[in-house]
């Protein structure tokens, strides 16, 4: 992220924090906004939230690391989420995930060396009718077999 973009996002977040700081239980909505704006939750953002909400930074770190939706490191350009919910699992979504690891040469949870993809396993996307399912960004791919993977990845 460029410095200018960083600054702009900081300002946007500041507006959001100011608007919500007096609301009860504002921390999690603010972290959601930060994750959305930056793609992760940088340390300086955690410190700023701590200052305004008068919550120790350690506590904010604790909350941010508790929930799987929040990340502390930048992500790849596209996030690939392979569903490992039960319905997908019994239909071999593990095979799909393994094929992606092989194809992208990255472990689950990691980001490719070129910063293009972050590969994740997720628990149930709620479209079990399409099992096994994965999402790349907002695009949903259903009824997958491992051999579909190379062609799909090429599209990005």
């Amino acid at each position: 992220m460029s410095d200018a973009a960083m600054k702009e996002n900081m300002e946007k977040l500041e507006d959001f924090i100011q608007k919500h700081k007096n609301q009860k239980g504002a921390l999690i909505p603010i972290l959601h906004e930060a994750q959305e704006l930056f793609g992760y939750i940088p340390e300086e953002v955690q410190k700023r939230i701590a200052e305004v909400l008068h919550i120790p930074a350690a506590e904010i770190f604790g909350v941010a690391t508790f929930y799987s939706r929040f990340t502390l490191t930048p992500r790849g350009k596209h996030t690939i989420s392979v569903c490992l919910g039960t319905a997908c699992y019994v239909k071999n979504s593990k095979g799909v995930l393994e094929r992606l690891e092989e194809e992208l040469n990255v472990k689950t949870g990691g980001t490719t060396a070129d910063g293009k993809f972050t590969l994740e396993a997720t628990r149930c996307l709620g479209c079990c009718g399409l099992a096994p399912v994965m999402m790349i960004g907002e695009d949903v791919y259903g009824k997958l077999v491992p051999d579909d993977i190379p062609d799909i990845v090429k599209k990005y």
Partner: protein
Amino acid sequence: MEMYRSHVMICRGTGCTSSNSEQIAKNFEEEIKKHGLEKEVVVERTGCFGLCALGPVVIIYPEASFYSMVKPEDVEEIVKEHLVKGRIVKRLLYAESVEENRLKALEEVDFFKKQVRVALRNCGIINPENIDEYIAFDGYKALEKVLTKMTPAEVIDTVKRSGLRGRGGAGFPTGMKWEFASKSVNDQKYVLCNADEGDPGAFMDRSVLEGDPHSILEAMTIAGYAIGASQGYIYCRAEYPIAVKRLGIAIGQARLYGLLGDNIMGTGFKFDIELRLGAGAFVCGEETALIASVEGQRGMPRPRPPFPANKGLFAKPTILNNVETYANIPVIFNKGPEWFASMGTEKSKGTKVFALGGKISNTGLVEIPMGTSLREVIYEIGGGCPNGKKFKAVQTGGPSGGCIPEEHLDSPIDYESLAALGSIIGSGGMIVMDEDNCMVDIARFFMDFIVDESCGKCTPCREGTKRMLEILERITEGKGEEGDLDKLESLAKNIKNAALCGLGQTAPNPVLSTIRYFRDEYEAHIKDKKCPAGVCKELLNYFIIADKCKGCGICAKNCPQQCISGQPKTPYTIDSSKCIKCGVCMQKCPFKAIIRK
């Protein structure tokens, strides 16, 4: 409201949206305009019809033609033939719905025949983004009755008489929960809705939120009146963007119509609802953890008592119900508690929504009266296992539930019967497994989930589940030892007795139920080092079938271990002692001559 001669209902639930139903809706609008039919035909984006396996689904009324697996390019033909000329496009109809050239009513189709849609009553019928459509289907009528004609005590009594029990898993009587909170004296109380549907394979709450969000708002307002609360929160999974968006729209519309806010329907009753997003923690489905999360903390449970009814959100009396529980409330007031209690069994009243998934033909959402047998749901509604495979087990209740084998399929579905079988109704996920699924691997899968999602606060759950997972991993890797099953059972017993919250107390269920019903499969792994279903990689060996092998040598060329040898044009062989079981040879063989067993 405008009158139209035809209604094109397009499913915008998650399953159908994922297979492009928004594009289909746009194409319909475009084609309808092209033919100048905008004043005669209306396109409605609705919630889930239930039969997700056949998505995207389009139903055209008044004929109720059920078009399945529609593609955007099919739309032109449907508009030209069906809407312009009145000729139904037979090739796209759901085959089950056609009988001797006659279109069956939806209620006659096997999938729908046994269903009774109470919680799902409006899903697929109304446009969830339009409050007027909800009102046209008796929406907010129950709230009006409650606010103008009933006292809070009468409201609670009605819910109690209906026999409604919590649909989130534990099955606690809803009316009693409300009564506890109403008796708790305080200046501020809260109404919470648990929309953090975390069970993998369960998507009924998602469908209600997406297909009928106003029913939740109406029910929460009724609950607020009953216990004397003025503020509600809906805690919804952030992974459900469509549900979040529609809830937001619904709250806005309700405020505009004076159905939420300071003076609801001019009665002076004050109630408002705020939406909070979960952030991906399964344990937040537990009530005290959910409360901690709404307060902005790590979502960790705390010991009870004090129960939330006395000391809940921000230390004030709070009730927390699940989405599906709320969805039943307005109907109970409109049709009467006796009507509701007339469905179901002695201790489990009403209906329950199940999400059918896994190895089953009709994947989707079904709502059936309590007491229906598992067999009816799986075979008559669900159509059984596809591809002629043999049914092995059905998993109910997600990571807190168990696997139920064939011999118990005639059991009625109610809270007590499933508990007696070592499982639970839970939130309503129902995953069918066939002969190709290894039950030890399934137990390992759920334990892996639990270890991942355990919050770490209490030792039995944090450490105990980890030890159970290690044993299960060893067994699936062929390193199982005599006595492992005893160790698993004793750990399970201790975790069940000592864990702090529902997550830990039920975590051993998938393991216990698979040991109970599939002990021979565990023993095959431990003693014979074999995986009968052919799933556990380390226990499998690859073989070349001599009759099928043409001796092309492609397998040998691709083998990373160089453990395949042979002469061209004669059958090759695999040296099992060097094989790392990567499966490349099987993938590459053009003659399907390599098997794994």
